[in-house]
């Protein structure tokens, strides 16, 4: 404490001045809220530039929270997702790259908008059928060159992030977007505790989300004949 002694007055002022500040979040080991809780989707909270997500369990028993296969999208669903990601703002829509690949499974949609120069990620919560609520942007606009290249033959590059709900303490999920070479025709991610999950792949663009962490997951790339071309352990950006 010798380095503080000559500042006793300031130290006391700081400590007493902060004494009424308390951390209000409940302990993470308390029981989670009901997974049947209704969606709070749409409550977007922008915190220091980071969107906070409303993370929810399924509102009914018919929709799984997550699946190892993505849903197949209709053109109308793609359009609805695009509209939801651009908040219905035509100017924003015009400024975005086109939808490259959309991963919809269970309670979450990860839409990846990309071209050769720009990329934008968007996370949505499906509500009431084919309606979507904007839950937040995981990523903003960046370039394919920002992706981490982990393999050159075939080309595999990705960005992976672990996200935690600001509302539901303890609910974490991982989002991966990436780019693969033309010889890659199928991408899976071995998710710890859940097994292989089929990533959404379109024209070399990849996206997938899964509950849990990025670390421990492994990406596998296959060619059209089902031969494994690469296997890459994943890690956070």
């Amino acid at each position, binding site marked *: *404490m010798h*380095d*503080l002694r000559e*500042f006793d*007055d*300031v*130290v006391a*002022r*700081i*400590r007493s*001045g*902060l004494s*009424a*500040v*308390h*951390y209000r*979040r409940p*302990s*993470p*080991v*308390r029981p989670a809220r009901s997974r049947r809780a209704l969606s709070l989707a749409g409550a977007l*909270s*922008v*915190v*220091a*530039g*980071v*969107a*906070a997500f409303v993370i929810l369990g399924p509102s009914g028993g018919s929709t799984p929270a997550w699946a190892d296969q993505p849903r197949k999208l209709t053109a109308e669903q793609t359009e609805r997702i695009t509209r939801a990601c651009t*908040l219905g*703002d035509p100017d*924003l829509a015009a*400024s975005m790259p086109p939808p490259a690949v959309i991963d919809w499974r269970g309670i979450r949609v990860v839409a990846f908008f990309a071209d050769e120069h720009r990329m*934008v990620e968007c996370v949505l919560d499906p509500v009431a059928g084919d309606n979507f609520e904007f839950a937040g*942007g995981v*990523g*903003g*606009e*960046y370039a394919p060159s*920002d992706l981490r290249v982990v393999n050159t033959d075939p080309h595999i590059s990705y960005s992976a*992030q672990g996200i*935690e709900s*600001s509302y539901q*303490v*303890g609910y*974490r999920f991982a989002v991966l977007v990436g780019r693969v070479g033309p010889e890659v025709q199928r991408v899976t991610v071995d998710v710890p505790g859940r097994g292989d999950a089929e990533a959404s792949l379109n024209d070399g663009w990849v996206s997938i989300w899964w509950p849990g962490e990025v670390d421990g997951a492994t990406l596998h790339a296959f060619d059209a004949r089902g031969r494994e071309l690469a296997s890459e352990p994943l890690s*956070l*950006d």
Partner: protein
Amino acid sequence: MDDTDFDRFYRRTRDDCYRALVVAVRDPIEADDLLSDAYMRALGRWPTLRDHPQPRAWVLRTALNLQRDRWRRLRRFARLPFFQQQPSPPPDLPVEPRLLAALRGLPDQQRRAVALRVVLDLDTAETAAVLGVSPGTVTTHLYRGLTALRASLTAEEVL
């Protein structure tokens, strides 16, 4: 894992860690998010972390590392329109405004040294370990920071 043990640690340390983080990062909302992330990681590592000589320091270091990673990531997000919307105003903190302003006005390294050494009451070596600097550097930043704070608070009172 002994959840009850972790829960006790959480309850005992959360306020001090939050106060230190509020000072270190300036934004109470960001501090709230970072601390939540850090405690979640602490929970996942609790079987080993419980034997750490200073688990509070581990939590703060993790939170500050998360902040660094977050800002690195945000640099590439800045151009996205919906990140340019006006953020929600930060909640009022029950802190004397001039003390808060004086703390927020310190340079980053001085503010972090004050947060860890004074608010969290880590010793100089622990503070140095968290910040990844030498103990001598901590002492220098602390001295400058506290000197500036004293001057700032005294000046306010004279006025």
